[in-house]
């Protein structure tokens, strides 16, 4: 199978280039990551992140034939050749398929992604009904792979000011949690022309999310809450 892979090592390359590989695959090679492991056995200088190889750790996000996805759960059989592999768009490249995710995590951290509740904790668990808990479904499953934020034109333009779909999904995860008491502060923090309102519902995030989550819907809910508290 044929691949064309973005290569750049600042130690020796003056500029990035695309390198072609042709690898013989075994029948057991199902996913793109299997092929990348074979390529790395032939050429150990190809750098990429990978870990769980089952789509839960979020390490191996990359741009695959023009679309962001996780290499470990992208089927080889579904890919057009030569498979073009590039680093996630919009973030500085450290080397090859490895990008600097500092900006992405900075935005995630900016929404205070932790439960806020100042009441003394009970002796046992805080109670939450199954219906209240269900509100968190589709929110807590995010794996922070950055496929969504790096496919979002608003994030490309303002990565320092716009929280981006992953961070906003996390913000709503806490707003929606009946155990969190900081909804009002969270809304205050997001009521800003950039932090939340740079989202123009382009929905690239929904399109690429490898976990099938819907950040646009979560962003819509946050906007609704803002309107609601104004009236």
């Amino acid at each position, binding site marked *: 199978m044929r691949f064309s892979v973005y290569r750049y090592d600042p130690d020796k390359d003056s500029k990035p280039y695309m390198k072609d590989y042709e690898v013989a695959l075994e029948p*057991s090679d199902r996913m793109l990551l299997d092929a990348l492991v074979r390529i790395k056995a032939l050429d150990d200088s190809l750098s990429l992140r990978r870990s769980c*190889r089952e789509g*839960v*750790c979020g390490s191996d996000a990359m741009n695959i034939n023009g679309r962001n996805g996780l290499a470990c759960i992208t089927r080889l059989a579904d890919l057009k050749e030569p498979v073009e592999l590039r680093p996630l768009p919009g973030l500085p490249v450290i080397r090859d398929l*490895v990008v600097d995710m500092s900006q992405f*995590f900075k935005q995630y951290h900016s929404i205070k992604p932790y439960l806020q509740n100042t009441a003394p*904790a009970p002796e*046992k668990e*805080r109670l939450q009904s199954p219906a209240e808990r269900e509100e968190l479904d589709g929110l807590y*499953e995010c794996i922070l792979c950055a496929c969504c934020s790096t496919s979002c034109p608003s994030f490309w333009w303002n990565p320092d000011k716009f929280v981006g779909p992953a961070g906003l999904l996390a913000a709503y995860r806490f707003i929606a949690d009946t155990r969190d008491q900081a909804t009002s502060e969270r809304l205050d923090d997001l009521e800003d022309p950039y932090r939340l309102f740079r989202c123009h519902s382009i929905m690239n995030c929904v399109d690429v999310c490898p976990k099938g989550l819907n950040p646009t819907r979560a962003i819509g809910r946050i906007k609704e809450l803002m309107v609601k508290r104004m009236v």
Partner: protein
Amino acid sequence: MSLPVRKFDAVVVGAGGAGLRAALQLSEAGLKTAVLSKVFPTRSHTVAAQGGIGASLGNMGEDSWLWHMYDTIKGSDYLGDQDAIEFMCRMAPQAVYELEHFGMPFDRNDDGSVYQRPFGGHSQNFGERPVQRSCCAADRTGHAMLHTLYQRNVRANTLFFVEWMALDLIRDASGQVLGVTAMEMETGEVWIFHARATLFATGGAGRIYAASTNAFINTGDGLGMAARAGIPLEDMEFWQFHPTGVAGAGVLITEGVRGEGGYLLNKNGERFMERYAPTMKDLASRDVVSRAMATEIKEGRGAGKEADHILLKLDHLGAEVIEKRLPGIREIARKFANVDPVKDPIPVVPTCHYQMGGIPTNYHGEVVVPRGGEHAAVVPGFYAAGECGCASVHGANRLGTNSLTDLLVFGRASGESVIRYLRENPGHKDLPGDAADLSRARLARLDGQAGGESVHEVGAEMRRTMQAHCGVFRFPDMLAEGVRRMQQVAARAARTGIADKSRTFNTARIEALELDNLVEVAMATMVSADARHESRGAHDRSDCPKRDDVNWLKHSLWYKDGSRLAYKPVNLTPLTAQTFEPKVRAY
């Protein structure tokens, strides 16, 4: 050339469940703590845990920590230390409540309490009937737990060194541990982290096997570092083969599937576990279920064209239960097995999953080694928790859900021990002059190696050797041959070469350094297994099919130096409960 030195009160290596739980304790105590991780914390392998956290909350029916303790000891095939097991089972409910207060999105019952599901080997009233003890968030418990712990550390302003790989442990002539050397992956720079206390939470090494549920990063780095620094590794012959890895792919299918009512079938459609474990059936201990499956396959009753796997049936649970309780499994089965479990069974095989052994510790998370006449003398300044440590709560076989319980309870306990130790031992002891020599020599060798062995090929040979010679069923001649082959693998691993010499994010270098650690673990495993002449828990030998409590009710300790073995007794004295005397183990 001297390396940059950074001083901390404590350094935690690894940011999975145990590392994050320990780090939280240290950060909240206001200690200057560095947490090193090869990957961004939420990429740690705890993220892949599915089924739940074992704790006797009793939300679904009567339960007690004493029953949990009995089940864990029986599950361990009586090799577990009963003081550590009592400690874990007593602390478990508190650990779960605390995690809930941190924001963990547990599934709920109608009364608002945490939902608990049945799991293998967990019972009511000392083995009478299955109990619902596993606290879960659908089948994504590890993911939810790891993110919750990371989030809580963000709140506590924990200082993370992300994508830093620890290389070697620093000990002085007295044996005291003074920190680690570590490499920043982005720049290739190496620093000395000079710490008053060093806590390893580096996880397991399941990548020594060819078929493994483990992530690529599970390369036993903490065990390799400890072994090179003269610390023995305990009970390394005991590896858990999880009954349900997706055939061919290795990806885990949680035991929670069987907890929710799924069961295993052979090619005749027979629910064969009824023959092997009449009471607990498909919810017997993992070693028991994996051996039953391997026996069915060996005797020609495997399913599929090659008769090489077993079928996990769950369609009778209905689409609604599967979507609500096991959504991740459905996703995995569709992607990796091309089946939709709402309609068809999932093809599964026993797959290497968990390392019961590790760096020897007591139940405070302090690393302990034989010294003088003492079996368990504390190594000053050194702590281990989670899969890399061996307290030993899992003994010869771990019960499902007890790994997450272990991370929470011993992550916290080891953090508390570090806080106590730092209070009593102020000030940094001087670094020895040779603090970074070993790491520098390893890196220089790798950079200068001409015509070296391929890291990929040596690694593949190690994984094949472990798989063929030290699997679910073990044979004396295969083990002896396995030791010889591992010696060859180790000799080759000492001469690995890499083509990539770049300083920037050089993953070829990282993989070569990881292989050094894997080889230590694989060697410890093979040598310890070859020497243990009995069958206990996950260690099953054809020539000694029975457990032998007269000669082998003891822990193995493997030393890298001369690949030699020593032994220490099992602690059969709990903290407050009565001893559970070893007896015949039936499910």
